C-alpha cells in the first residue's frame, strides 16, 4: 500500500508535467490544426535557458522562470515563422519535416552551447530534498511543489484562454477558421500566439521540472512523445482532455515502472500511443463526439 501511494504521487507529479506539455500541443493543434514536432525541443531548450540564468548567473528561481517562459514564447513564435507559417497551405509531409528539422537545430544548438552528449546538468532543488511524512504517507516536498506549480499554471492558462482577448481569439479560430477570418481576426497573429503560448507552457513545465531531474539535450523528444500520448488520449483538441491524459500517462508509467520493471517506465507511453491511435483514433476520453454534417 505504501508503495502504491508513493507511486501514485510520483505518477501524478510527472503526469502534471506531461499534462502541461500536452496542453501546449493541444493549444497549437486546436487553433492551427498543426502539430509542432519541435515542441519537445522547445521544452528542453527553455529548461537550459533557466539553468543558465539560475545556476550559472545566480538569478533567483522565479525571475529565471519568468524569463525562460518568455524565451519559450519567442522560440515558439520563431518556430511558427520559420517552419509552420510557410507550410500552412502545403501538405502534411512538408510541415512535419520542417518542424522536425527545426527540432534538430534546437537540439544541436543546446549540445553546442551547454555541453555534449552524456553531460547531464543538475538544477538545485528549491525545497528541502528530505521526504516528510504526512498522514502516514511519505511525501517529497519537491514533488508537491511541482504538482502545485503545475496546477497553478493550468489555472492561469485557463483564465488566459477564457478571459483575455487573445485567448478568446484563439478559441474563435479553433471553432471556425473561416468565420473568424470574416470577422477580422488576423490568422497570422493567431498562429503566432498559439505557437508562442504552446511553447511558453512547455517552457514553464521545463523549469518546474528541472529541480526534480537532470537536464540533457536529448530529453525533449521523449517528453514530446509522452505529452503527445497524453494529448491523443484526450482526443487532441480538448484542453481538459489533455490534462486528464497527462495524469493518466504519468500514473500508468509510474505503476508500470514500480510493479513490472523499471525499464517499462520509458516504454509504457509508446505502447499507449500505439494502441490508442490504432484502436481508438478519436481518443479514449472523447465521448463519441460526432462530426457535423
Amino acid at each position, binding site marked *: 500500500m505504501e508503495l502504491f501511494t508513493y507511486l501514485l504521487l510520483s505518477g501524478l507529479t510527472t503526469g502534471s508535467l506531461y499534462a502541461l506539455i500536452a496542453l501546449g500541443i493541444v493549444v497549437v493543434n486546436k487553433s492551427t490544426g498543426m502539430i509542432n514536432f519541435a515542441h519537445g525541443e522547445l521544452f528542453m531548450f527553455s529548461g537550459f535557458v533557466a539553468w543558465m540564468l539560475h545556476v550559472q548567473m545566480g538569478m533567483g528561481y522565479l525571475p529565471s522562470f519568468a524569463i525562460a517562459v518568455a524565451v519559450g514564447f519567442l522560440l515558439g513564435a520563431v518556430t511558427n515563422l520559420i517552419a509552420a507559417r510557410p507550410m500552412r497551405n502545403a501538405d502534411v509531409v512538408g510541415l512535419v519535416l520542417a518542424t522536425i528539422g527545426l527540432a534538430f537545430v534546437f537540439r544541436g544548438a543546446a549540445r553546442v552551447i551547454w555541453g555534449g552528449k552524456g553531460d547531464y546538468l543538475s538544477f538545485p532543488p528549491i525545497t528541502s530534498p528530505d521526504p516528510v511524512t504526512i498522514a502516514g504517507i511519505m511525501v517529497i516536498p519537491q514533488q508537491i511543489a511541482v504538482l502545485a506549480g503545475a496546477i497553478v499554471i493550468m489555472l492561469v492558462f485557463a483564465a488566459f484562454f477564457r478571459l483575455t482577448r487573445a485567448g478568446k481569439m484563439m478559441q474563435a479560430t479553433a471553432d471556425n477558421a473561416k468565420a473568424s477570418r470574416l470577422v477580422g481576426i488576423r490568422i497570422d497573429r493567431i498562429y503566432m500566439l498559439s505557437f508562442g503560448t504552446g511553447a511558453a507552457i512547455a517552457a514553464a513545465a521545463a523549469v518546474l521540472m528541472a529541480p526534480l531531474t537532470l537536464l540533457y539535450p536529448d530529453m525533449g523528444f521523449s517528453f514530446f512523445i509522452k505529452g503527445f500520448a497524453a494529448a491523443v488520449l484526450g482526443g487532441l483538441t480538448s484542453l481538459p482532455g489533455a490534462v486528464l491524459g497527462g495524469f493518466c500517462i504519468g500514473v500508468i508509467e509510474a505503476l508500470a515502472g514500480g510493479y513490472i520493471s523499471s525499464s517499462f517506465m520509458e516504454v509504457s507511453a509508446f505502447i499507449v500511443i500505439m494502441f490508442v491511435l490504432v484502436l481508438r483514433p478519436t481518443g479514449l476520453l472523447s465521448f463519441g463526439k*460526432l*462530426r*457535423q*454534417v
Partner: protein
Amino acid sequence: MTAPLLSVRDVSVSFGGVKVLDGINLDVKPGEIRGLIGPNGAGKTTMLNVISGIHPPHHGDVLLDGASIVGRKPSDIARLGLGRTFQTSQLFRGMTVLENLMTGLHHRTSSGLLAACFNTRRHQEEEEATKEEARQALEFIGMSAFADRPGSALSFGQQRVIEIARTLIGSPKVVLLDEPAVGLSLNRLAEFDLLLRRIRDEKGVTLILIEHVIRLVMDVCDQVTVLSSGRRIAEGSPDTVRNDAQVIEAYLGKELRARHPAS
C-alpha cells in the same frame, strides 16, 4: 420494363442524430441519365458516398446489377463497374494527364509486381496497350494536346473533364458525377451537354448527375430526382419536376434565384 441497373432501397444515414438521408429509394435504368438535385445540405453527396461505398448506410440496401454492394470496399465496388467523380478536383497532381488516364485502367490490367519490376515482355505489352487506350480516351474528350502536361498545370474546368475521362476509361456501367459543371464557362457548358450525351450513347454508360446548373440538368437528364433535407420530394421527367409545387418551394424558390439571378 427493364430491370434497374442501380437501385437504392430505403437507405438512411444519420450523423450525430441528424438524418442526412431518410428512407431514400432510387431506381436507375440502364442507359439513363438521372439528375439528382436539391438545395445545399439535401444529402446529395452523401447519397453518392453511400452508393460508392465510402459511407456505408445505417439502414437499407444498394444493388448494382441486382447484387447488393453494401459493405464492400470502395475499390471493389469500382471494380464491379461503378465509377465516380468528385466535387473538388481529385486529379493526381504528380502525374501527367496521360498517366492519370492510365491509372483509370488500373483494375483492368493485371501485371504482377515481379513482372513490373523485371519489366517482362508481357508487362511491356500491357503498358503499351494501356498507353494506347489512354490516348484514345484523350481523343474522345478532345484533349490529346494535353497528354504530357502535369495534372497540376490544368485549369479547373479541364481537370474536371480529365477526371471524367479517367473514370470512363475503366469501362464502368454506372458513373456518378458530382457537380461536374462547376468551373466551366458558359461556352463550354454547351459542349458539356454534348459530352454527357456522347458518354451515354457511344460508351453505353448510365449516368447519375448532381448539378446546380439547372439548365444542364433540364437539358440532358431523362429523369430527375429531387432531394430536400434527406428526403425524396419529387421524381419524374424534367418538365414534371420543374412544375412541381413542392420542388419550387423547397429548391427553386430559394436556391435558384439566389444562385442565378439572371436566369
